[in-house]
């Protein structure tokens, strides 16, 4: 039998797993897509097959998909144990902030004041909307 404190920590652990795996997966996928180039241009140049080939021959893309799959199964596991009203807003809003930090430091994106403000507003908004 689990105590309330253990229940809180297990919920924190499940949500943290989803957020961390999702952030790593999204950063790796974004890096892969930037290394491939504009898919619209590739499709115009080499057709849909060329665009698919460009994506599936990028090893970084599969690393990203691996972590996104891990995040997906962690989400399924969390939804099976916790309420959607807790898991969805917590994961969605925390992932926005962790991605903004990861985008700045790992992808060297220009996260200016406008993007920080947007990330924080959307984060609070998602929490209020889904709570």
């Amino acid at each position, binding site marked *: 039998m689990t105590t309330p404190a253990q229940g809180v920590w297990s919920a924190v652990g499940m949500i943290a797993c989803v957020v961390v795996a999702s952030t790593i997966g*999204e*950063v790796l*996928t*974004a890096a892969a*897509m*930037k*290394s*491939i*180039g*504009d*898919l*619209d*241009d*590739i499709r115009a*140049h080499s057709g849909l097959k060329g665009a698919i080939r460009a*994506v599936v021959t990028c090893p970084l893309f599969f690393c990203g998909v691996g972590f996104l799959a891990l995040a997906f*199964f962690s*989400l*399924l*596991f969390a*939804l*099976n*144990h916790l309420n*959607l009203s807790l898991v*969805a807003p917590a994961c*969605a809003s925390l*992932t*926005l902030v962790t*991605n*903004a930090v990861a*985008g*700045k430091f790992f*992808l*060297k*994106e*220009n*996260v*200016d004041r*406008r*993007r920080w*403000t*947007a*990330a*924080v*507003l*959307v984060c*609070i*908004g*998602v*929490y*209020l*909307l*889904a*709570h």
Partner: protein
Amino acid sequence: MPHHTLSPRQYLILATVAICAPLGDTCLSRGMNTLPPISLAHPATLIAAVFTPWIAAGIALLIGFFASYLTALSWADLTFVLPATAFGNVIVALFARFWLHEAISLERWAGIALITLGVGFVAQGPSLTERPPAELSASETLKLDDSKHVETSTNAALVEKEPVR
């Protein structure tokens, strides 16, 4: 040349990302709630869950989301795409209010206002960070190579026109 403003087609791709993701998550949630609790001791039951109708529908929507999301990430920053596509949450809430006639509390209306404001903020800025030429992507390098070919052939044509001294 990096894309700083989006075309209508690119806005459509962002809209597909925004709509498919929350709808897919809702289908997954409904599917998982109909199943008995799953323990870590039997991970194979998670795989079996994939083949139930609601979860299969959720996965189909999430595949549509993922294809659009990858396309969006190829021409826009991650920190632009994520807040911009959060508008899908607002669409689902409005859908619940006006079609399913669900009640929306004051807190939720505040959430809708904040997301709309956040999306408006990020959408006004550039969609892609400018990179120095050394970090150009493969396709951009390809385009540069193509333009070099054009330049070389133009020079060759000019040389041909010049009289030999």
